[in-house]
């Protein structure tokens, strides 16, 4: 089993990958239920943020409780605060990939908003105002960056370094 042959950092990375997928699904589902734009229905979007934060907290509590139970059942008494040089190296490499990704997302968001402002008959997301695109785009970019960071970590752990 993957969890039995992994340290706490890798187990946390697995939880984070699942977390980003669940929260991205939750937030996307919430967006489809919005009835207006940020300019006219700001309270709906703020409520969606609040419910997303609450869902995140509930998910994290449940996931780490399950992890603690699994570790106890497996008799894994390793110090969870122990982060060694290999963990730091893997995190540094993964962070580099994640921030390439973040830079790309931000460039795409601003190029889209610029094009929407200057090009007539711009074909993409014509019914989404720039501020809404920016707000939701930043949210998804954050989740994507976290996903890339943790998925890269898992890949490196599985590859061994």
């Amino acid at each position: 089993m993957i969890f039995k042959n992994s340290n706490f950092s890798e187990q946390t990375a697995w939880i984070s990958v699942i977390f980003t997928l669940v929260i991205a699904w939750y937030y996307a589902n919430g967006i489809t239920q919005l009835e207006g734009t940020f300019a006219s229905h700001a309270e709906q979007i703020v409520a969606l943020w609040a419910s997303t934060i609450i869902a995140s907290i509930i998910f994290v509590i449940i996931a780490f409780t399950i992890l603690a139970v699994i570790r106890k059942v497996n008799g894994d008494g390793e110090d969870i605060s122990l982060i060694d040089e290999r963990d730091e190296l893997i995190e540094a490499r993964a962070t580099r990939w994640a921030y390439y990704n973040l830079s790309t997302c931000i460039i795409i968001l601003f190029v889209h908003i610029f094009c929407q402002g200057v090009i007539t008959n711009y074909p993409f997301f014509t019914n989404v105002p720039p501020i809404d695109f920016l707000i939701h785009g930043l949210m998804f970019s954050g989740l994507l960056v976290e996903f890339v960071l943790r998925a890269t970590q898992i890949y490196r752990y599985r590859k061994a370094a």
Partner: protein
Amino acid sequence: MSKKAKGVISNQLRKKRFEKDEMTQQELAKAIGVTRQTIAAIEAGKYSPSLEVAFCLSDIFSSPLDELFQWQANDSDTSKV
């Protein structure tokens, strides 16, 4: 002009552990302050430890570094400058 080192690092960690009263990976990891998975990765040749960890290992097994770790250069790669 730079020369990029290319080669394979092998090690005798597993052998040394068994020679030292069949020390477990967990015991060795605890002794040098790394995780058991890191020891497993070093033994499998998938991770090269830092000099600090290498010297700690050398100290624990009372062996010189070149007895614990061996470097086999890939001549075709090192000749490229």
